């Protein structure tokens, strides 16, 4: 079999457990978590690839991959199912040399798939993670990388100083080249946080992945090992500043926030955008939604196939949901297929896929703007029987 040579391909790390999303990732990988009414988190990096002209994407899966694999399928929703391009799911596998097994770290995951990358003989490999919400043109970043003659370019964004110690921080020279990388520093020297988006010269990366694999003390991680090793070896690493919207949705609070940031007249993240930055998603062949005469729909997104008879304010209602007569949904994220029966009240909550909230249930409640968020969460397929109360911040 022959493979067309590619200038640039992408490897998408989608194997993480996402344990901080608690019940939402109990049976599903984080990249498959629903977002924004009709999307899943992985739609964002995948659509970015397509919109950036990258048509070959390896997707590294490991944790609870069933739904994710099914969702990606043959890559058709993203136009990645043609003979010259692909969205290839790459699970861990058994090898002849006993170096196989679960992916030990981000770098090891790529190491185990060197053969996949080599088929395309690429100049550049873009390494992405499957847990961020953003729109970005990777082609511009690759161009920047090429122009600066770097071995590796890392996308960075400016974060508030008080939050900097939660991130990998890159300290740069005036020309944008990186001289130091600090993982979650106590006393950060700068506010350039790594976004977990890398462009590598494949030849260099390949060499460092092989060396890293031979080091028994390595954690086989990009941030902890590969990047410091490249710096120590004197390679040129560049920081690429990205100013657009970007959100790590790795926690319940940030997932809820990112959904809420889609709302409003001038939303923080305008998901609509133009044709060139469209987000593609697998389609469910649902009909239009229906808004009843008794319904009230204010400042909300409602996806197709939903039927609304009650009140929805400042919320995201995903595909195929029902909000019964007299029910109230406020400041909440309602994932696909959820049924909220008549008279139920849902506030400041995330309702997992196909949850059923029966009559008279009260889910979540209010909290002040300065208070710590208390988001109530139901896991996938939860049945909240009649008159159940789920307290603010409670996770079931």
């Amino acid at each position, binding site marked *: 079999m022959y493979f067309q040579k590619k200038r640039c391909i992408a490897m998408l790390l989608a194997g993480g457990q996402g344990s901080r999303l608690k019940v939402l990732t109990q049976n599903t990988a984080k990249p498959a978590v629903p977002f*924004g009414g009709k999307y899943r988190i992985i739609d964002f990096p995948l659509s970015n690839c397509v919109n950036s002209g990258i048509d070959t994407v390896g997707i590294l899966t490991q944790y609870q991959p069933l739904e994710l694999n099914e969702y990606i399928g043959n890559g058709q929703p993203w136009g990645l199912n043609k003979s010259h391009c692909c969205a290839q799911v790459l699970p861990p596998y058994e090898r002849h040399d006993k170096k196989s097994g679960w992916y030990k770290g981000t770098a090891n995951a790529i190491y185990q798939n060197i053969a996949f990358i080599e088929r395309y003989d690429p100049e550049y490999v873009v390494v992405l993670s499957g847990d961020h919400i953003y729109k970005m043109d990777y082609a511009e970043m690759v161009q920047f990388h090429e122009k600066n003659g770097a071995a590796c370019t890392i996308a960075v964004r400016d974060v508030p100083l008080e939050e900097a110690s939660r991130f990998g921080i890159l300290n740069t020279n005036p020309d944008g080249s990186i001289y130091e990388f600090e993982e979650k520093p106590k006393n950060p020297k700068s506010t350039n946080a790594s976004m977990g988006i890398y462009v590598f010269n494949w030849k260099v990366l390949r060499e460092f992945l092989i060396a890293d694999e031979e080091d028994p003390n390595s954690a086989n991680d990009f941030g902890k090992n590969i990047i410091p090793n490249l710096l120590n070896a004197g390679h040129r690493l560049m920081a690429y500043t990205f100013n657009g919207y970007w959100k790590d949705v790795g926690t319940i609070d940030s997932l809820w926030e990112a959904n809420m940031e889609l709302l409003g007249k001038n939303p923080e993240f305008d998901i609509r955008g133009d044709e060139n930055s469209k987000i593609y998603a697998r389609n469910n062949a649902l*009909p239009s*939604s229906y808004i009843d005469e008794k319904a009230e729909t*204010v400042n*909300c*997104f*409602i996806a197709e196939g939903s*039927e609304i008879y009650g009140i929805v304010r400042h919320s995201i209602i995903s595909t195929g949901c029902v909000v019964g007569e007299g029910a109230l949904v406020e400041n909440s994220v309602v994932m696909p297929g959820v049924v909220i029966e008549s008279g139920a009240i849902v506030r400041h909550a995330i309702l997992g896929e196909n949850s059923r909230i029966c009559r008279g249930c009260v889910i979540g409640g209010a909290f002040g703007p300065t208070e710590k968020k208390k988001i109530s969460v139901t896991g996938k397929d939860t049945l909240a029987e009649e008159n159940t109360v789920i307290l603010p911040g409670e996770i079931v």
Partner: protein
Amino acid sequence: MNVLGIVFANDGSLGDLTEKRTMASLPFGGRYRQVDFALTNLTCAGIRRVGIVTRHKYQSLMNHVGSGEEWGLEMEAGGLEYLTPYSSSQTSDYRGKLESLYAAMSFLEFGGNDEYVIMQDAAVMCNIDLSAVLDSHIKSGRDITVVTCSGIADGNRPLDLAIKLDKRGDVADVAVDYAAPSDYEASMDIFVLSKAWLMQQLQEHIARNLYHMDRDLVLGLWKKKEATINVYHFDGVAFFNDSVAEYFANNLALTQKEIRDDLFSRNHPVYTKVRDRVPTYYGENCQIENCSVADGCMLGGKAKNSVLFRQVTIYPGAQVENCVIMNDTVVGEGACLKNVILDKDVIVHPNAVLVGTPANPVVIKRGEVV
């Protein structure tokens, strides 16, 4: 069972709405084109080879259906074919279905394994289990199966093909272009026949300058007792969009739950071209009542008893009542619309007022600015 599907795209008869499109590519029900229902019915019954017969103005049809990928028809074996006039040398423009099928003889012949042909018109929309229709045809042992429904014949409306049944369920009368009384069943333009029999009949009919399916093949052969008819009665929702008023009423009927649930059964979803629009955004001051709303809309004003297609924008202060508003149309601030059909890409200026009646809705052509 190898079955070949034929969809007739039908020339448009709805004035401005079909000025530049076939009935098949007429938008319907918020996110569909009329042909989606026929293609979905055929492919859900496991049919993997479909021909679409079309003769004029088929650009929007081809743009919408494409390779048939959304219906799983893009494969190399079988798949989708467009059957247009002049596509093989001997043909001219079609006068009737038989002529168009005769022109497509090589398409019929090519799939040597097909035993049966199911034909459906894009102008009649329903969600029907065609495998049950096929079973009924085979069990009946008759030559032609016609799918019919009651409730359409009313003594005024001319039916293309009307059939009266006797007490035993056998055909008592067949009539063509007839304002049949209500005890007649209306043909839904869905037919099942054996392919060999159809091909033989095509030869015989064309040789005698007979080209009309309903009149010559069904009525003609039945009268001469040369063909037997099996009637399959369909109980679900069947929409015949024969006039603008009917098209308008049938769209608005989608605000009724029973009709939606029948036409868009969860077990038998209707497939259409994917557009990847974002979900619809309902603004701070919008008031939406009894509406069917597709994806990608931006709703700031009031809408009542209406069908909003994809990516419709209604500015704050606008009021829309009993309207059918197609893709990408914009209704400006303070505009007031009642009983109006806005085709695609229409711009309604702020404070414009358009008022029609349910029997005679105002129709604004595609791309117009009012």
